[in-house]
C-alpha cells in the first residue's frame, strides 16, 4: 500500500490528523510476520545439534557442543532423541520450544550452490527461479505485500533496516528505518510539506513522503517508551531495545516486518559453548524473546522465521571455524504455532548423508517452507501463493 492508498483508505479521519498525527493503528488481531535474516551463513549445526550422531563429534573435535547433561549448563539442551539446542539459547529459544512456541526446520535452504554469501542472499530474497533472467525489482516479501494489498486483511510492510532489503522490492512503498538510534523528528509540518512537494511526480515521491512520515511516527513511539521506562524496571539495550521497538510497531500498525542481523561468518575461532557464535546466538535469542513480549496479546497472531543464506561445512576447518556450506536450519516462532517439534523432511546425520561430503543437503526448500506459512497465515489462494513463489509450491509443515 502506498501513501496515497493509505490516505484514501484512512479517509477524512486520517487527513485531519495530517502529517503531525500518528497514523491510525491497524485493528487488533490479524496475522503478523517477521523475517529475521542472519547474514553471513550462521553455523546451524551448532545451534541445533545432532547429538545422536557420533560423526558430529568426530567432525568437530574443537567446537562441538557437549551432549545433553542436566548437570552441566555448557552442554546442549535435548529437544528430541536426536536434536539438542545450543546452551546459549537455553533460556530463550529453549523456553519457547518447551511452550510449543518454537520449532526448527533442519535441512532447509535453497538450490543455489554458489556458496557465495551475496549471490545466495540475493537469490533467496528475490525468491525467483535461478535459471533465466531475474527481476531485481521483485522480492518475495514485496510480492507477498502486493498480493495482500487492497484486501480487508491488507498487511502494511516495514523494514527495520537502514536500507531497503531486496526481499521487499516491488511492493508499492515499504517504509524503512533502523530502530537503533532514533531521535526527535527533524522537520516541522511546513518544512516536510515543502520537501514532499519538491519530489512530487518524481519516482522517489512515495519514498520521500513515507520516510518523513515514519520518522514522525517513530518519534512519538519513542516518546511513549521514555515515559514507560520510568515505570518499568526493564533496561534493554542493543538488539533487545531494537526488538522491543519492533514489537510495538508491529503490534500497533505493521504486519510484515524484516530485519537483518550480521556477524555470522565464522571462518576462524567460532567457539563452542562459549565464544563468538554463542554470544551472537544469546543476543539474538534474548532479542526475540523481548520481541514476543512487546507484542503483547498480538504475539498469538505473529509468526517469526529466522533464516540464513546457507549452513556451514559439517566439519570444522583448520582454524576452529567453519566454511561456507549448503543446508541450514530455519527457526519458526509464534505465540500460537504448533511448536515444540523438529519439522520438515529429515534424514539421519552421518558422513554418508552429507551433501558433496561437505555440508547438510537441502530437503526443505525455502520457498516451500515460507510459502506454506504464508498460505496458512493469510489463507492465500493458489494464485496468490504462486505469485509469491512461482516455481515451488507451498509446503505444509503443520506449524500454523
Amino acid at each position, binding site marked *: 500500500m502506498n501513501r496515497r492508498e493509505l490516505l484514501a483508505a484512512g479517509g477524512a479521519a486520517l487527513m485531519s490528523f495530517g502529517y503531525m498525527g500518528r497514523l491510525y493503528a491497524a485493528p487488533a488481531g490479524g496475522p503478523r510476520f517477521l523475517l529475521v535474516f542472519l*547474514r*553471513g551463513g550462521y553455523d546451524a549445526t551448532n545451534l541445533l545439534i545432532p547429538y545422536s550422531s557420533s560423526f558430529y563429534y568426530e567432525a568437530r573435535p574443537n567446537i562441538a557442543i557437549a551432549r545433553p547433561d542436566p548437570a552441566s549448563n555448557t552442554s546442549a539442551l535435548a529437544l528430541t532423541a536426536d536434536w539438542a539446542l545450543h546452551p546459549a539459547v537455553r533460556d530463550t529459544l529453549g523456553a519457547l520450544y518447551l511452550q510449543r512456541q518454537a520449532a526448527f526446520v533442519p535441512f532447509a535452504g535453497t538450490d543455489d550452490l*554458489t*556458496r*557465495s*554469501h*551475496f*549471490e545466495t542472499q540475493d537469490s533467496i530474497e528475490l525468491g525467483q527461479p535461478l535459471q533465466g533472467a531475474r527481476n*531485481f525489482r521483485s522480492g518475495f516479501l514485496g510480492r507477498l505485500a502486493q498480493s495482500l494489498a487492497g484486501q480487508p486483511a491488507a498487511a502494511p510492510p516495514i*523494514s527495520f*533496516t*537502514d*536500507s*531497503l532489503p531486496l526481499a521487499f*522490492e516491488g511492493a508499492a*512503498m*515499504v*517504509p*524503512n*528505518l*533502523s530502530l537503533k538510534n532514533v531521535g526527535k523528528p*527533524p*522537520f516541522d509540518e511546513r*518544512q516536510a510539506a*515543502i*520537501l514532499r*512537494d*519538491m*519530489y*512530487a*511526480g*518524481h519516482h*522517489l515521491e*512515495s*519514498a*520521500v*513522503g*513515507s*520516510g*518523513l512520515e*515514519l*520518522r514522525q511516527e517513530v518519534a512519538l513511539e519513542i516518546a511513549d517508551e521514555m515515559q514507560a521506562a520510568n515505570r518499568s524496571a526493564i533496561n534493554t539495550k542493543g538488539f533487545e531495545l531494537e526488538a522491543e521497538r519492533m514489537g510495538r510497531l508491529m503490534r500497533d500498525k505493521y504486519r510484515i516486518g524484516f530485519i537483518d542481523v*550480521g*556477524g555470522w*561468518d565464522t*571462518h*576462524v575461532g567460532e567457539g563452542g559453548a562459549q565464544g563468538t557464535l554463542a554470544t551472537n546466538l544469546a543476543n539474538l535469542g534474548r532479542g526475540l524473546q523481548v520481541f514476543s513480549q512487546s507484542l503483547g496479546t498480538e504475539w498469538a497472531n505473529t509468526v517469526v522465521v529466522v533464516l540464513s543464506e546457507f549452513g556451514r561445512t559439517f566439519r570444522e*576447518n*583448520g*582454524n576452529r*571455524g567453519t*566454511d*561456507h556450506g549448503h543446508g541450514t536450519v530455519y527457526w519458526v516462532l509464534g505465540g500460537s504455532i504448533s511448536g515444540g517439534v523438529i519439522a520438515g523432511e529429515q534424514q539421519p546425520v552421518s558422513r554418508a548423508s552429507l551433501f558433496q561430503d561437505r555440508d547438510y543437503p537441502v530437503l526443505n526448500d525455502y520457498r516451500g517452507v515460507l510459502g506454506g506459512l504464508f498460505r496458512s497465515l493469510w489463507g492465500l489462494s493458489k494464485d496468490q501463493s504462486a505469485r509469491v513463489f512461482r516455481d515451488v509450491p507451498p509446503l505444509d509443515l503443520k506449524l500454523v
Partner: protein
Amino acid sequence: MSQRGGRLMYRAALAAVCAWLLVSSGCASGPARPAASAAPLPNLQRNDVLWLQRVTFGLDSATLAEYRREGRERFLDRQLGAPDGALPPPITAQIQALEISHADPVSWLAAVNAEHKTINDMPDGPDREQAKKTLNERGNQLAYEAIRRDLLRAVYSKAQLREQMVWFWLNHFSVYQHKAELRWLVGDYEERAIRPYALGSFKDLVLATLEHPAMLQYLDNRQNTAGHINENYARELMELHTLGVNGGYTQQDVQQLALILTGVGVNAGNTPRLKPDLQRLYVRSGAFEFNPAHHDFSRKTLLQHTIEGSGFGEIEDAVTLIVRQPACARFISRQIAGYFVADNPPPLLVERMSGTFMRTDGNIAAVLRTMFLAREFDAALGGKFKDPKRFVVSAVRFAYDGRPITNPRPLLNWLNGLGEGPYGRQTPDGYPQTELNWASSGQMSRRFEIARSIGSGSAGLFDSEDGAASAPGGFPQLSNRLYFEAVEPFLAARTKAALDRATSAQEWNTFLLASPDFNYL
C-alpha cells in the same frame, strides 16, 4: 507578507551575510573574482555541469574554471595523467600533523600483538579492563586518522578523479576496520595498496591488495596454510575482486586457488628460521610474508591451466591468469560503469570498456577515458543518484568552495548515519552502488536531516581539534556565484518553487541540498 516580498527581503539578507562572510573569513573564492567573468559562458550546458560532477566529487569554483579553460577532453586527460593532487596549505598541515603520516604500521602491529599478549596474561580486574580500553581507543584513533585524511583529500584535492577512484577501489577491495587489527592498518592499506594504483594497472592493484596485511587479515588468508585450508580469500578474490560470481570459475577452482595462496600471510615479528632450500623461497615486505614452510607445493589446475608448485611465483602466475580472463575485463568494466554511468550501464559501452581493458592489459586510466568520452556517457547524464559519500563530499565542496574546514568528523558521522561508513562494510562485497540501496524512505529522510545540518552550518566543521567551537560559525553561502553560474540555470521548476518558499537562508540551503537536482548527477 506576500511570498514574493519575503523572498526579496531574504535575498537582501543573503547579500549582507555573504559580504560579512567574505570579510571575516575569506570563504567563497567565487565571488571574490572579477565581476566581468561572472556571466556564464554561452557554451556552458547542463551536460557540461553534470559531466563535471561525475568526473569530480562535485562542483567548486576552481574546478569549474579549469573545465571552462581546458575543455572536456583536456580536463579529463589532466585528471587521468599525472594529476596534481595539491591541497590548500591548511589541509596539508592537518594531514602532516597526523600520526599515520609518519609512523610505520609494522611497528604498530608488533606493538598491538605484544599488547594483546600482555592483556591476555593479566588477571581479570579493572587494570585489565583499562588496558583493553586504552588499546581499543588507540585503534579507533588511528582508523579515524585514516578516514580523516581520505575525507580531506576527497573534498580538497585537485586530483578529483583519482580521489574518486581511490574511493571506488577501497570499496571494491573492501576491508572492515573492526576485524582483527585492521584499524592499525587501514591508513597504510589506502596509502600503499590502493592509492598508487588507482589509475594504473589493474593487475598491480590486485597484487598490491593481495600483499597487504589488511586484506590478508580481513579475509583470513593468514590462516590459510598447507593442510589447514581456508578458502575465504581465494573465493572472494575471484568472485568479488576480479571475475564476478558468474565469471566461469568453479568450486574446484576456488579450492585450487586456496592451495596456491597457502603461506601468504602476515608477520610483524622476526623472520622465521627456515631450512636453506625453503629460505630461498621466503618473501617478506613490511608485515607481508610468504612463508614457504606453510605453502602447499603440489601441482594445481586453475581455470584449466596447470600451475606447477614453485612458491610465490605461483601467486603472480595465478593473478596474471585471472586478470587476463575476458570475464575479468567485463566484470571490472561493468563495476566501473555501474558507479560512474548508470545502475544498469549500456551493454555496448561496457563492451567497449572491456575491449580497452583487454587491449591495454588492464590499464585503468584507459578504461576510464573510453567511458568518460563515450556518447552513451553523455546520454546517461542526470540519472545517477549520489551514493552517501558523493552526497556528503559534494555538499561540503559546494557549500564551502575551497575554504578549509578544521574538523571533518561530522562528515564521518553523516556517512555512518547514511549507512556508508568508511571501512564499515562488514561483508567483503563493499557497498552497493545503485540507487536501490541508497534511496529508501528511511535513507531519504536521513539525507534531508544531513542537508539541514550542512545548510544551517550547525555541524561544527570549523570547530577546533579539542571539540571547542573556535572559528566564527555561521552558515554556508550556497546562493553564491557558483550557484547562479552552474546550478540555477538548470534547476527544476519544483525545486525553484521550494526555494522560493524558504523563510531563512539556512532553510534555503537545506532545500537546495535536499533537492532532486542536487542528489542526481
